């Protein structure tokens, strides 16, 4: 080859071609999406995230959670993600418009987390609302156990296709808005996604929310009726799982994140945030484990992960899918 100019032009040209084709054109196609709203301009999804959520995502990034947990649900024709109850529909570009970085992940040494927040007990009122931009409340523990029917009713694993697995209808009362601290209205079809990966776990599975709206007696979650066990996927559950994963799933391969927690002697009154271990032995008498602010943000982030809201451009695996699904983003 003679001459440097053709070489340079070729090298530049191939690079520019690749950039134009794989970045510039897709960016024009899916790089400027707005939240979806209903006809009245309400029920925006996705909603902007809270400060705690954003900080929690940074904690998630710092500690490399993304190397084991994906956040994308693949369509049912390609994979079994939806069968595993990781979501009710495939993920779409619009789900991520407020995510920076968008942590799609490339490895599943742990389950997919796209909808982990959706699995929380509906009544976990202290979970910082993802919809709120001002939420700085930092009390993930001690949820108002409105629906703690889970502690009284036997765990009912939701079989595929059962009504429990049905996704929420795109009503204004969808959980994205319901998460703002108010319990879901009675009769709302906001059934949580049943845990799929926890099948081998001795932890009680999320009680199917069949008894929606039935107010349970106010019991303090710390001294909960069922032996000090936090509700699955509640904030307390996440904290304990982060602190000691194998106390919840014995076969878990997740590293513990004890450095996000402070183990300290109880001075005076025990902290309301202290972790609840299902029984003695984990923490010596007179000691308690309390989450740091980072841990609280991380849990706020996890509990805000929720792609259950229906999107017009994606076909939900629900019988009650939107009547006119737009062109599916494939």
């Amino acid at each position, binding site marked *: 080859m003679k001459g440097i100019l053709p070489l340079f032009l070729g090298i530049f040209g191939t690079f520019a071609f690749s950039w134009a084709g794989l970045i510039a054109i897709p960016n024009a196609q899916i790089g400027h999406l707005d939240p979806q709203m209903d006809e009245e301009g309400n029920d925006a999804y996705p909603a902007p995230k809270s400060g705690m959520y954003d900080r929690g995502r940074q904690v998630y990034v710092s500690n490399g959670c993304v190397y084991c947990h994906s956040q994308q649900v693949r369509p049912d024709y390609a994979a079994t993600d939806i069968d595993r109850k990781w979501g009710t529909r495939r993920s779409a570009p619009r789900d991520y418009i407020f995510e920076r970085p968008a942590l799609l992940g490339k490895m599943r040494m742990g389950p997919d987390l796209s909808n982990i927040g959706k699995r929380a007990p509906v009544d976990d009122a202290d979970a910082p609302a993802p919809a709120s931009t001002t939420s700085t409340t930092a009390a993930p523990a001690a949820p108002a156990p409105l629906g703690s029917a889970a502690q009284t009713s036997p765990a009912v694993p939701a079989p595929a296709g059962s009504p429990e697995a049905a996704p929420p209808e795109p009503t204004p009362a969808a959980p994205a808005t319901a998460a703002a601290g108010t319990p879901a209205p009675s009769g709302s079809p906001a059934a949580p996604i049943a845990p799929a990966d926890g099948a081998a776990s001795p932890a009680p599975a999320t009680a199917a929310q069949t008894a929606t709206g039935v107010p349970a007696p106010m019991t303090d979650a710390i001294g909960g009726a069922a032996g000090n066990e936090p509700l699955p996927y509640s904030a307390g559950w996440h904290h304990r799982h982060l602190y000691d994963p194998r106390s919840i799933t014995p076969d*878990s*391969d997740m590293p513990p994140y004890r450095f996000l927690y402070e183990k300290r002697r109880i001075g005076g009154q025990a902290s309301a945030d202290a972790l609840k271990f299902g029984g003695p032995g984990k923490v010596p008498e007179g000691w308690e484990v309390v989450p740091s602010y980072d841990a609280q943000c991380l849990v706020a982030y996890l509990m805000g992960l929720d792609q259950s809201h229906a999107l017009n451009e994606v076909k939900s695996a629900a019988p009650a899918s939107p009547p006119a699904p737009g062109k599916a983003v494939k």
Partner: protein
Amino acid sequence: MSSAEIPLRPPSSTAAVASPAENQVTRDEVEQVERALIDASTRMPVLMFYTSAVFWLLLGTLLAGLASFQMHMPDLLGGTSFLTWGRVRPAHTNAMVFGWASMAGIGTSIWLMARLSRTTLRHPLLLVAGAAFWNLGVLVGLIGILAGDSTGYQWLEFPPYAAVILFVAYSLVVSWAVLMFRFRRGGHIYITQWYLFGAFLWFPWLYGATQIMLFAVPLQGVMQAAVNWWFANNLMFLWFGAIGLGTAYYMIPKVIGRPVYSYHLAAIGFWTYALFASWTGMQRLVDGPFPAWMITASISATILTIIPVATVGLNHHMTMRGHFGLMRYSPTLRFTVFGAIAYTVFSLVGLLISLRSMASYVQFTQMSIAYSHLGLYAFFTMIMFGSMYYIVPRLVGREWRYASLIKLHFWASAYGVMLMILMLFVGGIVQGRDMNNTALSFTESTQSILPYLRGRSLSGMLLTVAHFIFATHFGMMLFGLGRSASVPTFLNPQQQEALQTSL
């Protein structure tokens, strides 16, 4: 390429080099002196890049070992924030990508550029400063990752302040390369120079564009993931791949003393490589939240990379034909041919796992780790080892001290990386099979891969041994403990005598 430059003459192929004419000898002598001068001029910067690279290699190996054991012993050091698995892993990948592989690649490229441009290296201070800044960037970046300042983008975890230092370092290196190219002698540009020229230009565009699109003017949502994969894939192909292939195009003909089989094949291989390999990447996002055409485009491009792979492979094979026996003696050839073969395997595996039917199986499994190691280690790192075995003696004026250490290094590296890839390949398939089987709980899919992860740790120990042997040997060369001899160190000394007598 003049056949008189052959350092290692095969005993049988005397026809090619026999009976040089009288005037030829004097010309050879002149060229010999010239080359010695060029080598001497590259000595300082290349050794600096190499020494730094070997240091990062050792550090990256130790981090890899820790991360590997943590995968099947999750409680190991879990209570320490900066040694938690999720920080050690990106520290390992970045130490290897930016510390070891990039610095070794730049070192080899500098030497090749100087040799092929046939000019002594000008402005070595630019390069020395470049190496110093590069080390600083990697150090700051690694500390940033371990301190929890990672950005969360694969292979771009270095916080932006470290990326800026790297970019300054890189611009020093590239400005030198441009100068070098301007002052080159002879209008002819050899194949290796195409690849190196491409790599030197692609890297800053790629890195700069990515940094802008992710941090300065960030794109929205999933486009960040697209940019991330576009970067990771093109870094592998257009940076490491180009340097690795360019080096192989130099080392193989050089060591066996035959010209490249076909220039036309090489040209086809280069341009189809630049065109198709740069379009891959999105296949790693298969079935993700993207328009399907993006992913299909990358899958098609991956299939089309068969063309450059076949042409490059054929070219190397035809060049080597009848001379494979030389791999018994020459360390450079042995490592380089291993790497060149691994490049073919790497591309074929890449093709296999990008097909949709296969991808839905192995997506989100350890298969992707097998693929990365196939590319970065079995292909690129082995070729870099080969080039270092060739170049370092010419810089320090001594030959490698122990053939046995080179052999140990080769076999530990080769067995180590092959075992690792086998473990992760099979493990990935098992993991994918169990993950897609909803009759099993998810935890069972991560349990079923545990034996393979333990096997991977074993292979990592082999690689650790290999790297420490190499570092020791390299250190001996650095401190002038090499053999002072006029013949290179051959791997099988008893054959060496036969070689010498025949020459």
